[in-house]
């Protein structure tokens, strides 16, 4: 129930004396979020759920009358006042996102937890300086975990960013082939014995972005879009939001498990960060990468691999002390004090978190090394470093190159990866293999997240052939994880996605050989490229993609190739052929200059002279995420739990139960 007038009498007088009641303080936000508080709906779903003992912050925004101040606040659970530990509460009245004329205080109690299962009421009581009081009530649930069978030791989450059912099917058609309606063989993810469907919505939208898309799996709670491991608040500080303890933190604290994060994206990106970092702004790269290291004592971080070297290089301040041209004054660092973090005292005291520092000059690679991490800057370095027990791999400046271009570099038919400045990047399965070797050395087990990040990124760009190879690369990483679980049966492996992206659909197959597609591209038209080429139903025959020994198609431009349409697309020109170069990525260091300068800038100009225009349903120049449910497949100990249709937050509780949380 939302904010209540301070006295019953006030309610009685409200009709005749509304001014008196309107002058009372109110509570405009109560965290954890609940339908009871937001809609006064005691019969609605319980929004916030936690494990017994899982930590989370309590917070409320109290709006006071002009000229008054907050003199007291307290939280009560089931009518009993909580007993906050010393220095774990705060009152924040400045730096708020509210309108300037709003006199408000954000009151917090950090790192609360309780063990008693059931739905509990949470009430905040606050008093302003003229003595008027307010209280408001919401609820949350502590989920009972029944012990059931031998616990798993290791968790591997394989996250295909943006990988819905269509993407899995399309990769199977390309990578395995069909004959008379049957797949020639399954993908690795198809061999997992249990599959369910996951609802992916975030706290504030039916369509999630990747931040809550990931963190909901590993906090058990709904976060808002663009936020990671926190609930929303009314302050400007991106790192002071009410925290929710991650599965990695919970399992490191209670079982000593290690954490590994592997991605083909920049490691600051939403999905990897949403395994370990608490922030309300997924764009605060400096603070995000700092927190990876600074709070390794909370998360057990032992492996971090992907792109994003630009966040780890020291920026100005430290270098200026040595003179502008000493060291590497122009190393491309994107570290920036504005995107860094420094935590308030109550958060530090409550969570035992590092304070942090706005230190753009920090040499974070050096600090990782000092903390015992081996550093691999490329594939050769990765091979040399996999005997370590802690590993940092930063294989590119921003996002890594995609499989389509990495594999063609290895085949000697493309120099795209050279254009980005990183000619020796590992494939995701190689990264996964190295990560699992390192993590297996941790006696108490581990939780690993391995992400095929550019399935999503290439879907945004509607670059069909590139995202298809991303799924195939991801499936090879899945096989690595499955092999690990086969050898270590105390492991649970799940394959899923944070959301679907682009509304990709297998609309059929070309009715023409590839030469005809190429010919049609010389005179683009709807008649020539849509009507004459798109084969649907029985006109969509089974395309045959020859596979090279490296596990990828020799070419994606085959006769009668599979055709993909998009249901959440921006404007694009389609010629059905693979794009020889990727679309420009503005975060790459040599973007805009030759040879990257010759890459298409956006999908709505790519193939403008060789394809027919398909008008998008969404504005902007890229496809968007969708709210469709995504598949989840499970293998290993406890896999049977992942059947049916589930919410993404349910996955957290299933995993916790499988590893013996209680």
């Amino acid at each position, binding site marked *: 129930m939302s904010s209540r007038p301070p006295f019953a009498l006030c309610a009685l007088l409200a009709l005749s004396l509304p001014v008196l009641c309107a002058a009372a303080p109110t509570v405009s936000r109560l965290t954890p979020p609940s339908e009871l508080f937001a809609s006064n709906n005691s019969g609605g779903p319980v929004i916030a759920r936690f494990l017994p003992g899982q930590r989370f912050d309590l917070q409320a925004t109290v709006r006071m009358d002009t000229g008054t101040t907050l003199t007291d606040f307290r939280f009560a659970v089931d009518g009993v006042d909580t007993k906050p530990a010393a220095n774990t509460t705060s009152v924040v009245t400045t730096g708020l996102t509210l309108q300037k004329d709003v006199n408000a205080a954000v009151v917090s109690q950090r790192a609360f937890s309780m063990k008693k299962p059931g739905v509990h009421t949470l009430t905040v009581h606050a008093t302003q300086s003229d003595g008027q009081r307010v209280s408001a009530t919401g609820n949350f649930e502590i989920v009972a975990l029944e012990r059931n069978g031998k616990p798993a030791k290791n968790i591997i989450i394989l996250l295909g960013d943006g990988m819905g059912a269509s993407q899995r099917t399309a990769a199977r058609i390309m990578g395995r082939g069909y004959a008379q309606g049957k797949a020639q063989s399954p993908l690795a993810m198809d061999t997992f014995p249990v599959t369910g469907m996951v609802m992916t919505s975030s706290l504030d939208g039916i369509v999630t972005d990747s931040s809550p898309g990931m963190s909901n799996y590993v906090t058990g709670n709904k976060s808002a879009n663009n936020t990671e491991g926190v609930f929303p608040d009314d302050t400007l500080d991106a790192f002071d939001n009410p925290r929710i303890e991650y599965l990695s933190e919970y399992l490191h604290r209670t079982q000593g498990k290690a954490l590994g994060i592997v991605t083909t994206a920049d490691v*600051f990106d939403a999905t990897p960060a949403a395994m370990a970092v608490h922030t309300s702004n997924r764009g*605060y790269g400096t603070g995000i990468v700092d927190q990876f290291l600074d709070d390794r004592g909370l998360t057990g971080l032992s492996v971090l691999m992907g792109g994003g070297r630009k966040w780890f290089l020291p920026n100005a301040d430290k270098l200026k002390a040595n003179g502008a041209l000493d060291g590497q004054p122009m190393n*491309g660092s994107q570290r920036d004090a504005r995107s860094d973090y420094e935590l308030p005292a109550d958060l530090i005291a409550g969570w035992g978190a590092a304070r942090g520092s706005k230190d753009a000059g920090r040499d974070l690679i050096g600090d990782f090394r000092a903390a015992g991490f081996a550093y691999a800057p490329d594939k050769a370095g990765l091979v040399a470093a996999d005997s370590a027990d802690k590993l940092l791999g930063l294989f590119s400046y921003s996002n890594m190159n995609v499989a389509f271009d990495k594999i063609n570099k290895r085949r000697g038919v493309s120099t795209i990866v050279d254009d980005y400045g990183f000619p020796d990047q590992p494939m995701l399965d190689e990264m996964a293999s190295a990560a699992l070797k390192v993590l297996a050395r941790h006696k108490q087990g581990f939780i690993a997240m391995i992400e095929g990040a550019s399935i999503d990124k290439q879907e945004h760009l509607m670059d069909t052939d590139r995202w298809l190879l991303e799924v195939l690369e991801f499936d090879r990483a899945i096989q690595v994880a499955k092999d690990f679980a086969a050898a270590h049966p105390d492991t649970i492996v799940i394959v899923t996605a944070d959301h679907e992206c682009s509304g990709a659909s297998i609309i059929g197959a070309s009715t023409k050989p590839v030469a005809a597609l190429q010919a049609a591209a010389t005179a683009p038209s709807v008649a020539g490229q849509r009507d004459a080429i798109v084969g649907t139903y029985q006109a969509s025959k089974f395309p045959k993609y020859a596979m090279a020994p490296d596990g990828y198609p020799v070419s994606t431009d085959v006769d009668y190739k599979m055709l993909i349409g998009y249901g959440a697309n921006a404007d694009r020109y389609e010629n059905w052929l693979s794009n020889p170069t990727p679309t420009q990525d503005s975060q790459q260091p040599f973007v805009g200059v030759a040879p990257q300068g010759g890459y298409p800038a956006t999908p709505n100009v790519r193939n403008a002279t060789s394809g027919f225009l398909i008008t998008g349903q969404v504005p902007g120049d890229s496809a968007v995420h969708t709210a469709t449910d995504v598949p989840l497949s499970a293998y290993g100990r406890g896999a049977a739990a992942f059947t049916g249709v589930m919410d993404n937050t349910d996955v957290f509780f299933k995993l916790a139960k499988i590893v013996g949380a209680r």
Partner: protein
Amino acid sequence: MLALCAAAASANEARPDEPRTDSSAATPAVDLKFRDFFTMPIGPAGLAPSARLLSLAGQRVRVVGYMARQEQPAAGIVILAPLPVVLGDEDESYADDLPAATLYVHLADTERTRAVAYVPGLVSFTGVLQLGATNEADGRVSFVRLQLDPESSRALAIAR
């Protein structure tokens, strides 16, 4: 957009005399291209300035690029990039689209409190090249800067 990028590439390579704004000065300027800022491939410790870039420190150079479009540009500076970019917020905020090979153009001290109006398309700037990491007024750190002479600075400021 493809045409724009192609134009950027060609302008970088050969024809910096066509764009709209220029600096006048007695000393002939040397053309500097964005692709010449850093060496390839990129090393374990990040980007490294090219020998050509280092050799031009303190000299008059001419650079062609696109003014970064900003909602609230800082006074006295122009950000020049090798491709059209919009610096904003959305969900990635400070993880913005500014490439590493970016030039900060500084107006002369007499004009440094003045903002510069956004100019679309290719723009050429000529001034004295400065190198080294420096905190900029917009909160970022620049590596490569161009110091404009007072006359060019006045022209830019007046353009507002």
